[in-house]
């Protein structure tokens, strides 16, 4: 019995046929069954993961929001409220599923599933660790772009089928917004694809290394910019403030989900929070070295066996999850800090700024790839400079936070004696 060294679920299925059943996968008549079982397994794992991520992250978001907003947030269900998401889920499941009388009922029922499958489809090509991926498609990035479009269809369907003018506004807004922002996302991903020479997500990660200076974000100034462009566009694609126009509650009541209730409503929220992971995962795999373990090459992981192999997989997953969580946390913080753009400002941000900038990035990366030898001394110098720049950005962020913190503390001596740190001032 050989060791399984494959990359994705297809190879796992072939390994099972070859080594457990001792059959040739090309000729055996039950190959399809094993493939089907593999697909089902992958789907169940991904679905479980999405649920377990999207649920608790709502709690994380609400507690973070509470901290930022100088209030407490959910803290009653379970220790510190960690089980709040389960309570919310159960409550929504038990709620009446209201469908407006004049709604287009089949479409109304269908829309949440369209949105959900559009989101869930992306998990096929998102890696979780060195060898943990449902299918390492050759056209991974292209597939990613294609399948997320299904979300637009779902939102538009929801808006139209509700037969409510506010929902229609939300649907139309989301169509305009999501279609527009796919352009800068595609271009930003193209920067990575050009640098890698492959559309496969695993190949993109393997083209980077474990250390920050081996990541694409530090490859050259253009990839550095492309990282921020991708992050911004991904926030727009995920309907997060400052780009949450499709569900702008102060303008459109609730946007496309105005008429939804119960479980169907939950599906939209589910999609929204699962999107956080997708957002973070795409940025991480494209620019932040994905699951790469510093100092351990992918070949070394493949060459290992037994518990070492399992250990590397878990470590790579932990690294990937940590990077994604960091991005998710930034996105959450942005949501609770910034106001919302207006719809024309949103469009001009996309077409006047993001699209031209990504185009410049593509041109710049082509130029750099042509004239700078990979691994040469110029390449190394550029990578070091970009790494330091990235570090400087992070340091600046913390200095800025400290400045704001100190500014109040110095001015108001009473605050210095506080036991609690910043937000909850003791009221005089």
């Amino acid at each position, binding site marked *: 019995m050989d060791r399984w060294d494959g990359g994705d679920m297809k190879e796992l299925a072939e390994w099972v046929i070859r080594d457990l059943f001792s059959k040739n996968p090309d000729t055996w008549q039950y190959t399809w069954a094993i493939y089907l079982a593999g697909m089902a397994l992958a789907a169940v794992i991904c679905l479980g993961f999405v649920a377990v991520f999207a649920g608790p992250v709502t709690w994380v978001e609400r507690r973070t929001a509470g901290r930022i907003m100088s209030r407490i947030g959910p803290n009653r269900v379970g220790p510190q409220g960690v089980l709040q998401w389960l309570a919310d889920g159960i409550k929504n499941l038990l709620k009446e599923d209201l469908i407006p009388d004049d709604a287009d009922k089949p479409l109304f029922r269908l829309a949440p599933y369209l949105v959900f499958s559009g989101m869930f489809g992306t998990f096929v090509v998102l890696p979780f660790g060195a060898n943990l991926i449902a299918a390492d498609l050759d056209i991974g990035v292209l597939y990613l772009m294609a399948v997320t479009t299904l979300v637009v269809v779902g939102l538009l369907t929801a808006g139209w089928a509700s037969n409510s003018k506010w929902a229609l*506004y939300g649907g139309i807004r989301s169509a305009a917004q999501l279609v527009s922002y796919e352009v800068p996302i595609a271009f930003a991903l193209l920067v990575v694809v050009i640098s890698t020479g492959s559309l496969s997500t695993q190949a993109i990660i393997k083209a980077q290394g474990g250390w920050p200076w081996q990541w694409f974000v530090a490859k050259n100034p253009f990839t550095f910019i492309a990282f921020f462009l991708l992050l911004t566009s991904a926030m727009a694609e995920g309907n997060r403030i400052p780009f949450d126009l499709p569900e*702008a509650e102060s*303008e459109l009541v609730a946007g496309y989900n105005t008429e939804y209730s119960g479980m169907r409503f939950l599906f939209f929220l589910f999609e929204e929070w699962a999107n956080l992971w997708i957002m973070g995962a795409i940025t991480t795999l494209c620019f932040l070295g994905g699951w790469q373990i510093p100092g351990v090459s992918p070949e070394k992981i493949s060459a290992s066996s037994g518990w070492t192999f399992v250990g590397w997989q878990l470590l790579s997953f932990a690294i990937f999850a940590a990077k994604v969580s960091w991005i998710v946390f930034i996105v959450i913080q942005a949501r*609770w800090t*910034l106001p919302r753009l207006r719809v024309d400002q949103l469009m001009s941000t996309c077409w006047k700024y993001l699209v031209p900038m990504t185009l410049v990035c593509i041109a710049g990366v082509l130029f750099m790839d042509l004239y700078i030898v990979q691994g040469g001394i110029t390449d190394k110098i550029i990578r070091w400079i970009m790494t330091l720049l990235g570090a400087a950005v992070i340091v600046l962020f913390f200095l800025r936070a400290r400045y704001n913190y100190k500014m109040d503390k110095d001015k108001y001596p009473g605050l210095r004696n506080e036991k609690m740190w910043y937000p909850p001032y003791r009221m005089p």
Partner: protein
Amino acid sequence: MDAREIYGLLVQKFPEGILEFKENLLDPAIEVKPQALIDVAFFLKAEQGLEFDYLRCLSGVDLKDQLEVVYQLHSIAKGHDLVIKVKAAAGDPVIPSVSGIWKTANWHEREAFDLLGINFQGHDDLRRILLPEDWIGHPLKKDYVPQPEYHGITPDRPDGLDAIPIGEGGEQPRPPIQYLPAMHGPKDEPEGKLFHLNMGPHHPSTHGVLNFMLNTDGEVLSRVVPEVGYLHRGMEKLAENLQYSGNMPYTDRIDYLGSMFCNHGWAMAIERLLNIEVPKRAEYCRVIVDELNRIASHLIATGSMAMDVGAFTPFTHWLRERETINDIMEMICGARLTYNYMRIGGVSRDISPAVVEKTLAWLDHFDIIMEEFDRLISENQIFIKRLAEIAVISAEDAIDYGLSGPNLRASGVDFDIRRDEPYSVYPELDFDVITGKAWKGSLGDCYDRYYCRMDEMRQSVRILRQALKAMPEGDIRAKVPKTIKPDPNEVYSRVESARGELGYYVVSDGSPKPYRAKYRTGSFTSMSIIEHLSPGLMVADLVALIASFDVVAPEVDR
């Protein structure tokens, strides 16, 4: 120029049109013939040296055999006041409309038509405003008889709970709900590609129960018609049935975010009628609670403005600060929202040293939080982009539409009742009047209205510090007769509320109840300019515009 001089001028100019000069009234009034009203009004507005550009209030009064309309005029440029009266026979009350001269008269006249049935000739849109279109009768007329029922709703249920069957018999068959057809609508139905949208009565950013009927082309508005009256509680009718002092708690409900101003204005009006001198300490108490209330109200205004453009965090930070003000108010008067603190001739309770200490400590804390708030949201680029250059109101328009308070000052009009027509102890206190300075865009845009309120809070802090220090010892209530029976007279008193001029026009006939009480509020006038401003705005801008006016729905509808 005082009223007598103006009367002399008018008699010279319109020997036929002027009827009488009522000098014995507290606010001397000039009575004008209906036929000459338009000429006189135009003369008063246009003549050099008079320049009555600001119509503060227009009230209708039912004198039983006659209906009277009272115009409270003010000149922002010259700083003088004038009261004009016009009378019409009760049978066929026709009075020419001045809405072409002062645009703010448009809504005021609709209200007078709605509540008193005065027919304003030349008004282009004389519809009911506070009551539904199919209401019968005009409630503020003295001979008004309420309808026995309105769409199945009766004022009383004679059988009480016994009429409702209990338990057995299952569910009673109910008559099917009949939906009424939309009663009002924009006069021109949307044509072609225009889209008709009802924003309200229940909508997150209408700040209460308001309705805006929008005609939109995609996101761009072509017309917005505000529809008010959902919260009309007939407060003016209520006042006519209550004794003077008994109306005080009802005034709390005019503007639930600024109850102190409502108390203050009512108390001042009756004190002027009775000619009562209020003790110094009571006046200081009033100013202190007024300014605390102003800060609390502006906290909600600026916070909800940030929330309406999508930033949640500032609002909760401001609510946290407001909580302390509520605590202080609770220490002062026992209530946190509807205070009922003031009394005719003074205030109900004294401000204790503990309150003074707590307020001073909180003010020190608040200074820092104000700066923090500026760093959090006022300087935020997205916030500025959403508010600057949006819905710019010129100074002329602001005056013409009768905007008041921060909304007027944001357009660069330097007018504050606290300074220009001083009441209470404001003359003894040092503060600046904040006017718009085109901080981020042009003068009179939404950002100016926002930042005016921010700076006004700083001024309120200044006032509070001075007032808390300068508060003298002494009584907190003047000697007031048990039953208040003012001599027949009439008075218009105004205070600078957080939402602008809050005016009380009170007519007494010598009985213990007011003959007529008219409340003039800032939100009502600011709502009337929305239709003028809205074409070309986007849906999201309308939300910012409504928030920037700091409209409180009960104050619009009363």
